[in-house]
């Protein structure tokens, strides 16, 4: 039974990190209907900024973590202002193509720094002894990941439901022209969506980097790794990202714990989430919590 509970805890931990990583996709899609293909690069960038501030500038890591979120907030906002603002009103596919280009540009920029091709790890700042309860253990890094994810997701959920700007963002997501007609600044909303996505990506990058170490390929690949989570949860649903993240995390852990290594099976933890994703999409094409849009012809 301890084994089962360990898998549950590990699944929730991994799922939380998936959810936080997926949040950036959701925030941008929710307001602008655009999929940001460069999200993985922003995750990596956030992690590298934390490292640079901590090791190169000597700031305490907690301050670096917050500062990194602030920096990526403004960086992502600038990216939107420079590259995407002009594309408002253009076909969505054009905007997505720009994010593909952006991915290449960010790759190039990161390769110009030592982070592009060197491996690093954050200085140890948390106790290395794990927290154990009844044989089930969780590291401080993992616990911190779950807590930060919970705080950020709670904050964003509140923001979209209760704040005026959040409601404006949802209005823009529903209908840009209608939102403009009631005085909402669509460009401002888009900029803010990108900024918040940048902020969440920095948090995700710092947490993943603390688990895997700072390797650009590994961190950058997370943009793609969490894609099934985004699709399963529904592209525009924050709660969907959380539920789908945890589902994916649990499936992976149970597959690794009970299927892999038995009956000649191997690698099911990597394949099973996609199989389940396909099955669920057969019945719920917009994901578990995605908005089902009805188009009147």
């Amino acid at each position, binding site marked *: 039974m301890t084994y089962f509970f360990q898998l549950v805890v590990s699944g929730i931990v991994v799922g939380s990190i998936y959810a936080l990583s997926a949040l950036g996709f959701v925030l941008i899609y929710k307001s602008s209907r655009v999929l940001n293909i460069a999200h993985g690069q922003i995750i990596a960038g956030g992690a590298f900024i934390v490292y640079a501030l901590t090791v190169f500038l000597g700031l305490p890591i907690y301050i670096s973590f917050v500062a990194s979120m602030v920096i990526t907030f403004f960086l992502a906002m600038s990216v939107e202002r420079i590259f995407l603002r002009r594309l408002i009103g253009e076909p969505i596919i054009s905007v997505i193509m720009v994010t593909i280009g952006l991915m290449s540009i960010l790759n190039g920029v990161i*390769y110009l720094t030592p982070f592009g091709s060197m491996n690093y*790890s954050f200085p140890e700042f948390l106790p290395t002894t794990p927290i154990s309860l009844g044989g089930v253990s969780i590291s401080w890094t993992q616990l911190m990941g779950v807590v930060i994810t919970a705080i950020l997701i709670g904050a964003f959920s509140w923001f979209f439901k209760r704040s005026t700007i959040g409601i404006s963002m949802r209005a823009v997501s529903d209908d840009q022209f209608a939102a403009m007609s009631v005085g909402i600044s669509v460009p401002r909303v888009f900029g803010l969506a990108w900024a918040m996505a940048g902020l969440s990506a920095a948090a995700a990058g710092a947490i993943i980097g603390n688990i895997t170490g700072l390797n650009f390929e590994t961190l950058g690949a997370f943009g793609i790794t969490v894609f099934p989570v985004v699709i399963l949860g529904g592209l525009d649903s924050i709660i969907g990202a959380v539920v789908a993240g945890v589902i994916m995390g649990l499936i992976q852990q149970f597959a690794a714990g009970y299927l892999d290594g038995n009956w000649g099976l191997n*690698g099911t933890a990597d394949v099973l989430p996609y199989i389940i994703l396909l099955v669920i999409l057969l019945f719920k094409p917009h994901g578990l919590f995605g908005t089902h849009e009805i188009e009147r012809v």
Partner: protein
Amino acid sequence: MKRNSFGYLVVVMTVAAGLAFSAPAVAGETYQLGMSLAITGPTSDAGNPYSKGVEDYINFANDTRILGDAKIDCPIRDDMYETAVTKRNFEDFLDQGMIFFLSYATGANQALAPDFTEVQIPVIPASMDSSLMKASPYIFLPIASYSHQYVGVAEYVATHHKGQGTAKVAAFIHPSAFGRAPLADFKAAQAAGMKLDLVEVVEHGTDLDNSALLQRLASKGVQYVLCQTVQSPVATLLNDAQRLGMAAKTFGEPGKITFMGAHYTGGNDLIALAGTAAEGFHWTTSYRVTSEEGPWTDWQLAMAKKYARDDKTANSHNYACGMMAAQIAVEAIRRTREAGKEVTRATLYDTLNQMNGDKAFESLLAVGRMTYSATDRMGVDRVQLYVVKDGVFRAVGEPFRLKYMK
């Protein structure tokens, strides 16, 4: 008068033209090499310091006139780990008159092997995949293949395991030919008599938490995990093993799992990624490391200082790999010249094939002598076991030859 001036002008121009065309001969010959590797993109954490090693050694050879008046020109191009780009670079280099090619990835070498054979050009790859030696007779591995290194750690376990019965091992491998080929050679060594019980083969993904895997392996009685992949997944595995209290800090520690691996699983990059969780990790390669005192460390660090490299590069075994690849090429050219032969692809190939017996090449950077012949395409055939102790790799015993793999 006018006619005399014209004649004078013709003489001056003829002399000037003659001097201009004879200038290269005065400056000495230039030998054209070429290198294509991943300075950016996947595996660039290895490719970047590797390229610096090549660049520095070529500069060193030119600066210290190892080839006398002759110079080496070795353009280094980034291929971003893409075979199509490697091929384009290779063809461009051929157009420039390349006589020796320094290549990189397993896949690109396999794809280009027929081209190497067709144009008969000697090649030193950064990949130590054993299949490359069969793919083209023109590919020369600098050190023991991945298979040799992997079977090397396995043999060490079989020989030094203190517990009762046969040691139980699990293979943790990259889900590609890079991971699978050494495992196939591991199984061949088992068939040849290496006594180990292979309990499970794990082809890893991008796991953020390996609790399930580690607990499953522990429940099956696995005592050693032998890794053949890159550093990042090993670092995550080690972190989780440390959290679960499963990682052995000394070889074969009872009730724990000893983690071991070949070439690209280790080096300072692993310590950079895993931190204290890397303690007790055992690693094989045929290179010396700068955490061990010796003339190789002094020389490698002096080279890095001379060419203004940062500490990370200076202490990287990939920097040493790059320097040694360039060293082999330069040595082949030097010996060919010394023999009074014209330096061509064919004569360099012959020189490399004669690098054995009393003509074997010794590099400070490797743990053994480098030998090549028509039937031997693996330079250094000994491997050295290292272990992470107090945050650095330390040698365990002496370099050894494999018993169950030739």
